[in-house]
C-alpha cells in the first residue's frame, strides 16, 4: 500500500487529534482514548512510511516541497533518508508507549492537557527528523521545547520548576545561537534573491563556504546539538530534568529528544561544514570519551535510581558523538544504531523505574531490595533491558557500542590516535556493567521486604508497553543487518560529504 504525502500526514495527524481532545477535555477516559488512538494511527502510518522507503538508496525519499516564505527562499521541505527513516518509527513507538502507560493511571491531573502536550511534542519530534529546510528544522526543534517544558513543569516531581526552567534555558541558549548560525548560512548561500535554506541546495554550494565561516557556524550549530544531546560539559540540565519529569516525559526525553542532537550533527553539521568538522573534531572526540567515562563513573555512585539511568544516558550519548566524529562507516553506523538502541533500551529503563516507583514510591536504591521475589515478570523484563543497556552480546546495545569502538580503533585523525581513545572508551563499557549490575542486584535481590509483598507485578498495560521494546531489543541484537542495510547508503554519502569538502552533490 502506498500513501501519498505520508510525511505531511505524519505531521498533521497529531494536530488533528487535538480537536477531539479539546472536545472531550472534561472527560479523562475519552481524552485518554483519543490520545491512544491518535498515537496508534501515527505509529501505523510511520510503519507504512518505512515500508514505502526504498532500501539501498542514499538520497532523500518521499520528498515533499512547497513554498513557505518565498521572498526569503524558505520552503516547507520534508523527506527521509536511511539515517532518519528509522528514527521516525522509533519516535512514534515511544510516544505511543508513553501515552499508553500514562493512561494506566500514572497521570491523574489535567489528563487532556497532558495528552495535548504529548501530541504537540510528537509533531515537533517527527518534524525534526523529516525536515530538510533549516528554517523548518529550527521551528520543529523549538516546537519540542514548550510541550516538554509543560510536561516537566506541571506533571513533574517536587523540584520540577527549577528543573524545567533549567532545561528550557539551557536548550534555548543553544538553539538561539544556532538560529544566528542558520541566518549566517542563509546569507552565505548566494546573492540576494537566490538565497536558500534547503539542505540539498546548500549541499551543492557548500564548497563556497570559507574556512573561518565554517569554523564559527559549526560552533553555533554544534553548541545547540551538544546541549541537546547532551555532551559533557553541557549535560548538567539532564539529570535534573530526568529525575523530575513524569515517567512518560523521561521516556521521550531520553528516547527521542536527545537524539535530535546526534541527528543534527549527522544531518546538518557534518555535511554542510566539512572544514569546520575537521577543526572541531578532536575537541568533540575528547569530550565524547570524557562523557563516556564521566557518565559511567558518576552513575556508579548514584543513590537515586532515576538519576543513575539519567547519567548512564550521558555515557551512552558519548558513544553516539564518538561514533559520528570518527568519520568512518563502522563508527557512523554504530552511532545511528546506538541512537535507536538507546531510544528503546533507556526508554524501557525509565519506563520500568517509573513502574517501580508508582508501586513502591521509593526511588533511592538503598530503600529497595528483594523485589525479585514478588515480581517475577518485572524482574525478567527489567533484567533483559539492563543487560541490553550494558552491552551484552545478543542484545542491541552490544551492536552499536561494538561498531563505535571498532570505528574508533581504526581512526587516526585525532591526537594520540584511535588506539589511545578507543580502549579508553571501552573502559566505559566495563563501568556500565559495574553500575548496572550492582544497581540491579541491590534493587531486585537481597532480603525480601515485607512491605513490598502486597504490591502487584506488571499489569497487562505495562506488559503491552514493554513487549514491543523487548522484541526490538532482541531483534536488533540478533539480526542488525536489515537496519544496517537501511542506514549504510545514506551514511556513506554523509561521510563522503564530510571527508571531501570539494565533493559536489547535484541538485535534482
Amino acid at each position, binding site marked *: 500500500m502506498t500513501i501519498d504525502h505520508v510525511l505531511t500526514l505524519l505531521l498533521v495527524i497529531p494536530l488533528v487529534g487535538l480537536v477531539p481532545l479539546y472536545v472531550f477535555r472534561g472527560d479523562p477516559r475519552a481524552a485518554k482514548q483519543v490520545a491512544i488512538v491518535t498515537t496508534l494511527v501515527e505509529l501505523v502510518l510511520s510503519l507504512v512510511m518505512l515500508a514505502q522507503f526504498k532500501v539501498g538508496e542514499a538520497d532523500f525519499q518521499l520528498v515533499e516541497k512547497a513554498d*513557505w516564505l518565498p521572498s526569503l527562499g524558505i520552503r516547507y521541505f520534508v523527506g527521509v533518508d536511511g539515517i532518519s527513516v528509522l528514527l521516525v518509527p522509533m519516535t512514534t513507538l515511544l510516544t505511543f508507549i508513553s501515552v499508553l502507560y500514562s493512561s494506566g493511571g500514572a497521570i491523574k491531573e489535567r489528563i487532556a492537557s497532558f495528552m495535548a502536550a504529548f501530541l504537540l511534542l510528537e509533531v515537533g519530534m517527527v518534524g525534526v527528523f523529516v525536515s530538510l529546510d533549516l528554517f523548518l528544522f529550527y521551528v520543529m526543534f523549538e516546537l519540542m521545547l*514548550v510541550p516538554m517544558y509543560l510536561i516537566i513543569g*506541571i506533571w513533574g516531581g517536587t523540584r520540577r*520548576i527549577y528543573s524545567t*526552567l533549567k532545561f528550557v534555558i539551557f536548550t534555548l541558549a543553544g538553539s*538561539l*545561537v544556532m*538560529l*544566528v548560525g542558520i541566518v549566517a548560512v542563509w*546569507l552565505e548561500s548566494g546573492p540576494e534573491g537566490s538565497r536558500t535554506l534547503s539542505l540539498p541546495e546548500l549541499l551543492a554550494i557548500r564548497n563556497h563556504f570559507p574556512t573561518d565561516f565554517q569554523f564559527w557556524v559549526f560552533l553555533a550549530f554544534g553548541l545547540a546539538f551538544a546541549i541537546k544531546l547532551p555532551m559533557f560539559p553541557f549535560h548538567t540540565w539532564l539529570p535534573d530534568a530526568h529525575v523530575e519529569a513524569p515517567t512518560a516525559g523521561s521516556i521521550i526525553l531520553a528516547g527521542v529528544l536527545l537524539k535530535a542532537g546526534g541527528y543534527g550533527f549527522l544531518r546538518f553539521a557534518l555535511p554542510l561544514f566539512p572544514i569546520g568538522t575537521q577543526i572541531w573534531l578532536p575537541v568533540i572526540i575528547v569530550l565524547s570519551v570524557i562523557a563516556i567515562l564521566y557518565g559511567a563513573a558518576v552513575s556508579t555512585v548514584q543513590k537515586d535510581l532515576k538519576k543513575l539511568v539519567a547519567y548512564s544516558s550521558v555515557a551512552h550519548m558519548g558513544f553516539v558523538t564518538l561514533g559520528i566524529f570518527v568519520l568512518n562507516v563502522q563508527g557512523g553506523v554504530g552511532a545511528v544504531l546506538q541512537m535507536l538502541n538507546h531510544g528503546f533500551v533507556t526508554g524501557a529503563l525509565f519506563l520500568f523505574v517509573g513502574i517501580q516507583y508508582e508501586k513502591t514510591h521509593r526511588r533511592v536504591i538503598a530503600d529497595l531490595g528483594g523485589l525479585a521475589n514478588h515480581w517475577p515478570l518485572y524482574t525478567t523484563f527489567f533484567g533483559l533491558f539492563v543487560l541490553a543497556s550494558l552491552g551484552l552480546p545478543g542484545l542491541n546495545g552490544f551492536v552499536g557500542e561494538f561498531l563505535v569502538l571498532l570505528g574508533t580503533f581504526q581512526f587516526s585523525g585525532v591526537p594520540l590516535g584511535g588506539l589511545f581513545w578507543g580502549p579508553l572508551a571501552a573502559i566505559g563499557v566495563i563501568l556500565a556493567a559495574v553500575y548496572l549490575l550492582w544497581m540491579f542486584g541491590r534493587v531486585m535481590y537481597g532480603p525480601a521486604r515485607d512491605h513490598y509483598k502486597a504490591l502487584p507485578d506488571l499489569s497487562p498495560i505495562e506488559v503491552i508497553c514493554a513487549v514491543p521494546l523487548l522484541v526490538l531489543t532482541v531483534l536488533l541484537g540478533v539480526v542488525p543487518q536489515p537496519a544496517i542495510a537501511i542506514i549504510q547508503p545514506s551514511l556513506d554519502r554523509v561521510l563522503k560529504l564530510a571527508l571531501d569538502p570539494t565533493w559536489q552533490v547535484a541538485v535534482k
Partner: protein
Amino acid sequence: MNDLVAIAPELIVTITAGAVIVVDAVLSRRNAARWLPLIVTVGLVVALFAPMLWSPYGNVQPLGVRGSGAFFSGYVNVDTFTNFFRTVFILLALFATLVAPTYLTRKQVPPGEYYATLLFSTVGAMTVALATDLITVFLGLELMTIPVYVLAGIQRKDRFSNEAALKYFLLGAFSSALLVYGFAWLFGVTGSTRYSEITTSLKASGLANGPTIIALALITVGLGFKAAVVPFHQWTPDAYDGAPTPATAFMSVAPKAAAFAAILRVLVGGMGPLAVEWSSVFAVLAAITMTAGNVVALVQTNTKRMLAYSSIAHTGYILAAVAAAAAGTSAGAAVLFYVFAYGLMNLGAFACLLYIDLEGTRGATLDELNGFAKREPFGALAFAVFLISLTGIPPTVGFVAKFLVIQPVLDAGFAWLAVILALNAVLAAFYYLRVVVRMYMYDAERGAPALIPSRLLSVSLGVSALAVVLLGIIPNSLYQWALDAARPILNNP
C-alpha cells in the same frame, strides 16, 4: 480635494474623536460607557479600509495605496510606508479600545476622555508616518504624545497615575525640546525642513562637520527618548506602571512604533547619507538597550513593571535592525515586521493583566498570577501565547520577527550584535517563562483577588493570540507587505 482624499484615514479618526466628545456630552455616563466603544470601533474600521476605498492615485488595491506622492505642498507624503504604519496604529487603537470598557467602568475612568485622547494620539502617530517634513513630523509627535500624558494620568485620584503622568510629561517635554533643537540645527545646516532637500544638501556638503553631528546627536537623543532607548528610558517603567492598564498597553506600543517610523524617515531616509556612519552608534545603543532592559526585567516581581522593562529590551531588538540599515530593504522590512509583531504581542500581554482586579493602577505581582490557568484557562492560554511569542519561540510571530532582525544585522556585518541579541533572548526567556510557570504550575493562593472576566476582553485577546500564532506559521504576506513598505525608505544600493 486630492489632498483631503490622501489623508482620509486621519480625517476619519479625527472626526470620530470629535464625535466621541460630542456624544459623551449628550449621553449619561452609563449610556456613554456602552455606546462610545461602538462608535470608536466603527470609526476605526472605516479608517482602516479608507485607503482601499479612496485613493489619491485612482488605483485602489487590497493593501491600500501603492503609489507615492506629495500632498499639502510637500508637507505630507502617502506611500506604502505610510499605509503600513497607518494600519498598525489603527489596529493598535482598535485593540486598546476593545479591551478597555470593563476596566474603565470598574475604575470610574471617564470613558469619553479615554477614547477621545486615545484617538487623538492615534492621529498624531499616523501623522508621523505621513510626514516628509521636519515640521509635520514634529507636529505628529507632539499630537501623539500629549494625549498620552493625559492617558497616563487619567485616573486622577490614583497617586501612581499622577506620578506617571508628571514624570512622563516632564521627560517627554524635555525630549521634545532636544528634538526640536536638533531640527533647528539641521535646518541651519541644510537650509530646508524637507527630507528630500536635506538629503540632497547633506550629500553635497559632506557629513563630518560639527553642526551636522550636533544635529544628528540631538535628533537621536530626542527620538531615543520617545522610543525608550537606554540610557534615555528612565521614564518608561514608572509611566507604564502607573498608567491605567489599557492605556499602558497602548502607550507601550503606539508611541514606540511612531518613534521608529520617525527614526526611519528622518535618520535613515532623510539623513540617508549619514546613516551608514551613524549605524555603529545605533548598534552599540541597541546592545545596551536590550541587555539593560532584560537584566532589569529579570529582577522584577511586578508583572506590569517586568513587561515595561521587557518593552525596553524589544526597543533594543528593533534598534538593532535600524543599525543594520546598510543591509538595505531587508533591514527596513525587519523593523516594520518587528514593530507589527511587537505591537500585537506586547499590547496583548499588557491587556491580559486586565483580568486581575487590583486596587490602584499597579499591575499584578507574580504571586497573584499563581494558578491563573485554572481560574481563567482561556486568558492564561492567551497570555502564554503572547509571552512565548515575546520570547521568540516558534511557531509564533515573535520568532519570525527575531529571525528577520538577525538577518540584516548579520548582513550588515554586526555578527557580535546578532550573538548578543540571541543571548538576550535567553535572558528574556527566563523571566517570561517564569510567568508561565506561575500561571500553570502553581496553585492559586487563598484570598487571591477575584478575576474580572469580560467577554469582549476574552474575544479580543483570543483573536490577537490566534493572529500571533497564524502569522508565525504563515508570515509570508505580512513580510511581503513590510518589504513593500520599506522600499520608499531603504532602497537596495
